[in-house]
């Protein structure tokens, strides 16, 4: 395979670079557009670099529209959902991998069987349930259904299976209780798996759309994607500058986090095979 000729290798570099530019262009266009005025965004032909860069779009998002609230809603929901998954899924993952108890096999089969159930199947009855709990249009209504996920349990179980059993036996001989063993011996060893699960869960929650669209029904509970989708299809359809700035607000935080943790991220995807 290494006998790819020098000339064809240069062609490959050119091809890959063109592809890279194509892939990145929408982001550059978005960020540059967020500093343009509405009038400039309507110009034909379009400008690439902002002629009169302005922060007006961003100030309007946070003063006239409630993007501050949406941002904090998205953050709260994503943080709570991530914390819930890290705690509960690691507990179950450990129990399934290391402890012998009746029903263990049935629970694992249940988790495997529901790994692939799509959100579109459950959202109608889930809405009826959440409505009867009085949680429609509340933040708990947004995060409660997502505090645990079969995928998280599966991931943690696989990781715990790779740990030596002797660790637990030794801790028991030392007289440690079962919960102390989990929290003080096992949990610290799970850090790499917790990081992967944490990143994936946070992203999934931050970008989640269908459920927040169903449950959030007012300015106080909208998350960023819901607010942006409703603005972009409603009366603000023509507010190009605002929409570009809104998209930037949704994308930029995860982009920064991604670029910082990208190594762990990509390893996580490769090992788990799930986005």
């Amino acid at each position: 395979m290494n006998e790819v000729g020098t000339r064809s290798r240069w062609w490959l570099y050119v091809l890959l670079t063109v592809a890279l530019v194509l892939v990145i262009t929408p982001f550059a266009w978005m960020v540059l557009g967020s500093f343009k005025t509405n009038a400039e965004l309507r110009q034909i032909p379009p400008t690439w670099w902002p002629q009169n860069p302005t922060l007006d779009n961003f100030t309007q998002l946070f003063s006239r529209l409630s993007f501050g609230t949406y941002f904090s809603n998205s953050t709260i929901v994503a943080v709570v959902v991530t914390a819930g998954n890290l705690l509960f899924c690691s507990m179950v993952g450990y129990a399934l991998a290391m402890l012998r108890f009746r029903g263990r096999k049935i629970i694992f089969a249940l988790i495997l069987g529901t790994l692939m159930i799509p959100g579109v199947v459950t959202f109608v009855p889930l809405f009826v349930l959440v409505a009867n709990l009085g949680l429609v249009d509340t933040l708990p209504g947004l995060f409660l259904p997502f505090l645990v996920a079969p995928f998280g349990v599966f991931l943690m179980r696989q990781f715990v299976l790779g740990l030596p059993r002797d660790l637990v036996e030794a801790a028991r001989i030392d007289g440690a209780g079962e919960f102390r063993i989990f929290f003080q011996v096992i949990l610290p060893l799970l850090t790499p798996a917790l990081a992967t699960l944490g990143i994936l869960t946070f992203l999934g929650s931050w970008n989640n759309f269908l459920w927040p669209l169903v449950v959030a029904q007012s300015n106080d509970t909208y998350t960023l994607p819901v607010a942006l989708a409703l603005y972009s299809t409603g009366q603000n359809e023509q507010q190009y500058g605002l929409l570009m700035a809104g998209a930037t607000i949704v994308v930029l935080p995860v982009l920064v986090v991604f670029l910082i943790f990208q190594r762990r991220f990509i390893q996580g995807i490769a090992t788990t095979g799930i986005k």
Partner: protein
Amino acid sequence: MSAVTGTRRGAPQTTREARRAGSSRPPGARREERAGWLLTLPFLLLFGVFTAWPVIQSVFFSVTDITNRDLRTPFQVNFVAFEQYAKAFADPVFRQAALNTAYFVLVGVPLTMTIALAAAIALNTGITRFRAVYRLGFYTPVITSIVAVAVVWRFLLHPDSGLVNTVLAWVGIDGPNWLGSTTWAMPSLIAMATWRNFGTAMIIFLAGLQAVPQQLHEAAAIDGANAWQRFRNVTVPVLRPTILFVSVTTAIGYLQFFEEPFVMTQGGPLNSTISASMYTYQQFSFGNYGYAAALSYLIFLVIAIVTALQFRFLSEKED
């Protein structure tokens, strides 16, 4: 435990002791049993209430005439058997939505996988430098909100002030009104979905390519196989489980596509981009809960069938 079962003489003794303690299992087992259940309980409660119960209930809803007026009394509704399903098959908009979804999946999945595999092979074997930069760049769209990038793509595809038609004009092509045309709207959505998603498949393919033994390639090359023959006969067979996995997960995702038409076209023009998920959501928002539940079950059924077929079709050739 491993300590007691290790010696033959110790084993029956412990069993006897355990029996005396009122259990047929070794000591410590009860403690382990209790811990196992306590650690699993929070998950089981949340999972039972918010996933298992709704799954069961959606079957029930789909055979009733429940609407938003029955929100407080979801069990006092009329049983209508398969009427909702029959209605779905006769509903011209749902038929259109099903066809659109099939179009999106049948074109989108192979396109996404081809680009992802080409990128993975190029990065894995063709080049030596800047591999990490390309990989990072190609993966970036995956982490972004579909809603946000759909908003941006709407501007990119704008007939007059959009970047795409501006670039096409440089080479003398008069670009269409992409999202306003019944012909071009769906290909535009597919292009965006491919751009957004091929990074995941590429990363998984890159991991799978690590398993292709270098010696096999060298041996095939010595035997006179060209690059394409080596790809067909060395890389693809080793990669088959990875291809299966990627095709299943990509198809499951694409079968539910929703944000793209919701933000970019609102299902138009003339329902040419409305998806099965989007139509289900619309029926739900009109208050037709029973109908929406039946539609969502049909989507689920198709997902299950497609997954099973892919397993059958792609793993059979393995011998």
